C-alpha cells in the first residue's frame, strides 16, 4: 500500500459527492476537510455519522456543501455550529434532519446489502413527517396498530475519516470506533487519513485485528499527522478546546469565518 498525498485525496472527491463523516468524538478527518476547502470542492452532500461537528461546520462555511443529512451539527461544549446555523437561516443548504440511530441503521442496511431496515421509535416525531423516504408500515410480526418505520439503505459515495494508523497491506486501525467500520463497509469509496503507516499486517495480530478495517474497503490512505485536530484521537491526543472556542467566536460572522479560513486552512504554514 502506497499512501497518496492529502491534496491528491482531496482532488479525488468529485463535486456533488455524497460524503459521510463522523463528528468530533469519532475520528473525523479535519485534515481532509481542510484540503477539500483548499481544493474548492462544491456541491457536496454531507452525511453526519450520526451528527456533524467541527469539520462539517467549516465545509458549510466555505460554501462546499449544498445539502446536509444529519441528526445535529454542533461544536459540543463550544456551542452551536455557527456556519451551519447561518446557512439554515439563509436557506443556503438543504437540511434533512435525521435521528442518530436512523443514520446508523441506514448505513447498516447498506452494509448488509438490503434495501431497507426497520427502526423503532420515531412515530409521532416531525422528523419522520419531513422524511418522505422513510415509510411507516404495519409490523408484520406485531399486533394490529403496531406500526414501524422502514429506513432506506444509504451508500455514501465517499466515506472520510481519520484512523490512527495504516499497515503495509492497507488495513487501517480505528480501535473501538467501529462506526467508522460500518461507514467504510457501506460506502462506495473510503478515504482515510492516518497518523502513520506501520510495518506488518493488523489482521495477523489478534490484539489489533478487532480494531482494524480491512483494506478491502479502503480505497486510499494519506498521511496527515494530527489529522483529527482539533478533535481528539483515542489515546493519541486530546481535544483542543481552545482552538474550537476561538473558531466558534470568529465564525459567528461571515467575515470572521473568512479570516479564520485564510489563516487556518489556506496559509501555507498550516497546510504543510
Amino acid at each position, binding site marked *: 500500500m502506497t499512501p497518496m498525498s492529502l491534496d491528491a485525496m482531496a482532488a479525488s472527491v468529485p463535486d456533488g459527492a455524497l460524503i459521510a463523516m463522523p463528528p468530533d468524538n*469519532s475520528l473525523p478527518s479535519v485534515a481532509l476537510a481542510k484540503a477539500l476547502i483548499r481544493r474548492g470542492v462544491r456541491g457536496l452532500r454531507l452525511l453526519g455519522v450520526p451528527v456533524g461537528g467541527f469539520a462539517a461546520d467549516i465545509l458549510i462555511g466555505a460554501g462546499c456543501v449544498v445539502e446536509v443529512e444529519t441528526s*445535529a451539527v454542533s461544536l459540543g461544549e463550544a456551542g452551536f455550529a455557527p456556519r451551519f446555523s447561518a446557512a439554515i437561516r439563509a436557506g443556503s443548504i438543504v437540511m434533512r434532519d435525521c435521528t442518530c440511530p436512523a443514520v*446508523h441503521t441506514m448505513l447498516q442496511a447498506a452494509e448488509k446489502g438490503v434495501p431497507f431496515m426497520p427502526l*423503532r421509535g420515531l412515530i*409521532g416525531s416531525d422528523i419522520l413527517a419531513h422524511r418522505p423516504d422513510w415509510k411507516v408500515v404495519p409490523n408484520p410480526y406485531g399486533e394490529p396498530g403496531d406500526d414501524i418505520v422502514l429506513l432506506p439503505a444509504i451508500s455514501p459515495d465517499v466515506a472520510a475519516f481519520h484512523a490512527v494508523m495504516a499497515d503495509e497491506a492497507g488495513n487501517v486501525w480505528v480501535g*473501538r470506533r*467501529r*462506526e467508522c467500520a460500518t461507514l467504510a463497509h457501506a460506502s462506495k469509496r473510503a478515504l482515510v487519513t492516518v497518523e502513520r503507516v506501520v510495518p506488518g499486517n493488523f489482521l495477523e495480530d489478534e490484539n489489533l485485528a478487532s480494531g482494524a478495517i480491512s483494506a478491502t474497503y479502503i480505497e486510499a490512505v494519506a498521511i496527515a499527522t494530527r489529522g483529527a485536530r482539533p478533535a481528539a484521537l483515542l489515546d493519541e491526543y486530546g481535544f483542543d478546546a481552545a482552538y474550537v472556542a476561538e473558531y466558534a467566536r470568529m465564525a459567528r460572522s461571515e467575515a470572521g469565518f473568512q479570516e479564520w479560513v485564510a489563516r487556518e486552512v489556506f496559509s501555507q504554514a498550516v497546510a504543510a
Partner: protein
Amino acid sequence: MSFVLEELLAVTIARLIRDPAAPPARHIAVGAASPIPAAACWLVAKQGAPVRLSLLHKRSGNPFTEGTRELFDLTGQGRIDLFFLGGGEIDGAANLNLIGTGEWPGTGVRFPGSFGSAFMYMMTNRTILFREEHSPRVLVDRVAHISAPGVSAPGVFRRGHAQALVTGRCVFRFHPERARFSLESLHPGESVDAIRAATGFDFDAADDVPQTTAPTDAELALLRGVVCDEMRETYPEFCARVFNRKSAA
C-alpha cells in the same frame, strides 16, 4: 451546609433516579454536555446503588466497544433504564423540540438538532427531562416542531415516558396518562405564581406545593469529593466552577 443551585439540582435528580415508585435504574446512559445529570448519577452510584453508568463522551474507558451505534442498540434491547433529555423548547405535553423555531427546519432559531431523542425518548424505560433555563421561551404551550413526542398513540411501541422535568426553579412530575405536568416541588425562593408566570404551558398544582428538599451534608460531601473526582476528566470546567476544584492538567 450552604450549597449552589447545581448541587441542589444534582441531588434532586439523584432522588428522582432512586424514586422507589419508578422502574429500577440499573443502567443509566448520560449524553454529552450533561454535567449536572452526570453528577446526579455518580452521586447515586457513590451512595451505593447497584447502577451501571455509561457516559457517552468519556474518552478514556468509553463504555462502548461497537462505536456510537451501541448506545442505541442497547436501548433497543431494553437495557437502558434511564436517559436524560432536554430541549430548545419543551411543552406541557412533554413534547421536545431540538430542531428550531420558525418554519421547518428552524428558520427562526435553529437548534443543533435532535440527536437520538426521537428514538431514545420512546425506547428508554424512563427519561428525566432537565433544562436549567426556566422561561416562557423554553417552556412553551406547544413546541414549534416535535423532535420527540411526550406521549404516543395506543398501539405505538413505547417503553417509557418522562418521569419528571427538572428546571432551575422547580420540579414537575409528568403524567403520561393525561399528558400533563404537575408541580412537584419549588426550589428555594420560588412560588407557584412565579412558576406560572415563567412557564408557557398550563400545569396542575396542589394547594400546598412543597419545597425541593435541600441537599444533606452527606450528599454535599459526596458531590464535592468522590463525585467530583470521577467527573474531572470529562467536565473539568464544571468541576472548577461548581466544586471549586481546578484540574491538575
